[in-house]
């Protein structure tokens, strides 16, 4: 059974009277432990697809099976539960809570998982260590560099031992050197912890860190092939 099984997924947005098709029946499967890069120009539907994979959004039609469970059968709170302990998000804009320390940001998923305070702290500290940010637990996002903020976001994605990390242009706001550091981190997590990583990127050198590249155009998958090592 595939970890992610998308079947004929379509998404239609209504903008006033106009209907915009973001996805035209996308079907694909992703196995546990894979490292997938999704590429495509703006408006190709790759972010929409990612949001559906992350249970942040629901498809207009089609089925999305996560570990064999059809997400269409789940209610709001059950979807929240999946986001909480199956999926970790890393966004281009980091999306950390402002005026809140790194440690507390990382603790957030645990808070909504009902984990007691002591264990929460322990796990958050471990996650922060694993992204190489020890000593910065009490820093607020504004006191951290972009790369450091993205590491906090990755720690937050890791802290609940989620099997999947979804990263929407995680290096989009970072310089080349920091980008490669972040990508090395993803590779390490994929190799050592067997975490399935799906990331969206424009840049082919970022996509080169992955093992499989899926290309989107106008709401359809136009190519899906393993990474050719140069």
């Amino acid at each position, binding site marked *: 059974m595939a970890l992610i099984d998308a079947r004929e997924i379509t998404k239609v947005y209504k903008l006033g009277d106009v209907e915009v098709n973001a996805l035209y029946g996308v079907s694909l499967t992703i196995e546990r432990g894979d490292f997938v890069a999704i590429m495509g120009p703006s408006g190709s539907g790759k972010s929409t697809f990612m949001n559906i994979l992350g249970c942040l*959004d629901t498809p207009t039609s089609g089925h999305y099976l996560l570990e064999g469970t059809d997400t269409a059968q789940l209610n709001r709170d059950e979807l929240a539960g999946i986001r909480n302990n199956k999926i970790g998000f890393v966004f281009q804009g980091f*999306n950390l809570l402002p005026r809140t320390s790194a440690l507390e940001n990382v603790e*957030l998923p645990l808070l*909504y*998982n*009902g984990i007691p*305070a002591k264990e929460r702290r322990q796990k958050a500290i471990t996650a922060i260590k694993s992204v190489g940010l020890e000593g910065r637990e009490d820093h607020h996002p504004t006191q951290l560099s972009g790369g450091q903020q993205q590491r906090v976001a990755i720690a937050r994605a890791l802290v609940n031992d989620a099997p999947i990390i979804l990263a929407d242009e995680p290096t989009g706001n970072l310089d080349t050197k920091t980008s490669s550091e972040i990508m090395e981190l993803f590779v390490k997590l994929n190799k050592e912890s067997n975490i399935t990583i799906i990331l969206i990127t424009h840049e082919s050198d970022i996509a080169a860190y992955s093992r499989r590249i899926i290309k989107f155009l106008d709401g359809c998958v136009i190519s899906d092939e393993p990474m050719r090592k140069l």
Partner: protein
Amino acid sequence: MINMPSTIKISFRALRVNKMRSALTMLGIIIGVGAVIAMLAVGTGASQKISEQIASIGSNLIIVIPGATTAGGVRMGMGTQPTLTMGDAEAIQRECSAVLDVAPDLSGVAQVVYGNQNWSTGVRGSTPSVLNVRDWPLAEGRAFTEQDIKSASKVCLLGQTVIENLFGDIDPIGKIVRIKNVPFTVIGVLDRKGQTPTGQDQDDTIYVPLTTAQKKLFGTTFPGMVRTITVKAKSTEALSDAEKQITELLKQRHRIGPKQENDFTVRNLTQMMQAAEESTKVMTLLLGAIASVSLLVGGIGIMNIMLVSVTERTREIGIRMAVGAKTWDIRLQFIIEAVTLSLIGGIAGIVAGVSGSKVISMIAGWATIVSPLSILLAFSFSGLVGIFFGFYPAYKASLLNPIDALRYE
């Protein structure tokens, strides 16, 4: 599963981060709760004062007044017909079961002289029972006795106002005062009683034995005439019974047929006073209601701020949802924020209300009483305001679509 301590922590942090806004929001509740407590304190103080005044007249009183005379078609007004007698008073005491005590009285205004001082005051002739009927203790000396009544002795009891005007600092006991030029020995001093609810000074009075008043001071149309009869009923519940019994008895004694008009009037004094007390209660309610409006406005202020806060923090809500916050996690966070605002505001409002009512008593000289009930009421009401006005913004926040909330700019 909802983790209460953490949710509370999250809410508190959000409030702390926006200190100024939190304080201003609370101000509405502080003013509301403070106003409710202070207004209720003023109202309770006023009705307490009236209750005290009612008690000062004497409790459970009925007053019997003679009817009006008609002279050549001109009706002379209440109490002009001399129809009540000592005998009536004794009969009421003897035959009405609901009556505790009876004090007939014959009064008039007279000039009173002591040394080179003189003063015009109300002189009341009555029986020894008057002090019991009117719940009026003596400050010093003794009351007059049945013997004084029988022998029409020239003794008197002075009220505090009379003493101040005639004696100043001199001890009046045993001194001789002249009332209408008749010398009287002062045997007792009445305790201070203060004003009636209508503002009459009850201490500006002299009591003398009824018989002395009849024979030596005011004279009577016929022997044993009294002007009014004050009756004390056995209890508040017995008042209306007493009223009926007295009316029946006097009708019989005065031989008044079923179609004839009574030549006397029976008035329930306590009832009148209770009406006054009732009206202050209405005033208290009114004040409280007006103050509640400000509490309501404060509550709407909270809702306003919470709605703004929800909009402003849409992204934050999106982040929380993305990492797994459930519907009630988000709802509770905002409700707790609102309730915390209103409860802290409520506590500060109680402090403001209590000190405010102290200031009112000091400046305006009104008696104010802060009842524990009004504090409890205002506090629980402010908590309810928080829940009520916090729920809608919280509800709104919890229904946001995660991806829309995340993308909100």
